[in-house]
């Protein structure tokens, strides 16, 4: 039983590591700022979620009781990730950070800049 729990925790840890790595890979590889924005808000958040859940399990296995700190950290990260993504995206738009060529509806960025309803 304990072996399988440990195996599951290891699996979660590895999944988390892979997602964090893929997120970082996306940071380097993706073509423009706005696509890069997707990497940390998703891949990294799930990666860290996996690692924190594994941490909760391992703590319980060691007989140190249910440690709630990890849950507080993951909850905090899940709440703040979209907020910081939103703020950085808004700031980048104000600075006219260029879009990748061939972005669908690129002209819409002008509407967003002055916060008006889209034309047409």
């Amino acid at each position, binding site marked *: 039983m304990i072996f399988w729990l440990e195996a599951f925790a290891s699996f979660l840890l590895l999944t988390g590591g892979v997602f964090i790595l893929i997120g970082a890979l996306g940071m380097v590889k993706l073509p423009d700022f706005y696509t890069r924005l997707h990497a940390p808000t998703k891949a990294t*958040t*799930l990666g860290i979620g996996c690692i924190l859940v594994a941490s909760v399990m391992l703590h319980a296995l060691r007989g140190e009781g249910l440690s709630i700190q990890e849950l507080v950290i993951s909850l905090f990260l899940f709440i703040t990730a979209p907020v910081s*993504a939103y703020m950085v995206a808004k700031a980048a738009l104000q600075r006219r950070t260029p879009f990748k060529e061939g972005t*669908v509806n*690129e002209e819409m960025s002008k*509407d967003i800049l002055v916060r008006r309803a889209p034309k047409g």
Partner: protein
Amino acid sequence: MLKKLFPMPLHSVLLLIVWLLLNDLSVGHLVLGLILAISIPWVAAPLSDPHARVKKPLHALRYILMVLGDIVVSNFEVAGRILRSNKHLKPGLIALPLDLTGHFPLAVLASTISLTPGTVSVDFSEDMKWLYIHALHVDDEHSLIERIKTRYEAPLREIFAC
């Protein structure tokens, strides 16, 4: 009188619970936690503005579980797109017409969109009737809008009853 002493009773209880979970369960921490749980709302209450309350907690719980599931699925999708060549990528901006109203429900919707399938919310229009979204890959604009409206906006309207 009681209202004055505890302006935010739910927050006070939550604060005490979190304090006790973060530290160990002892009399000292209980007293310190109680002091903090009572005094922090005194400072914080004037700052909070009235917002829409959750009308259906059970629906809210189901919504949270659904979003957690979607986060996992969307991550595999995004991971796949990252590992494939950039040439296949077709990012785009989308304007989502909103039926939902109120600052808090809209904030929840925007955060959900940021956390799920290949979409990040960028900004609202001034009149709060449009939400601009950046999508990592746009195949069909209308089906994406339809998906977000039925999957996330409709349950949120039910939860907040607006």
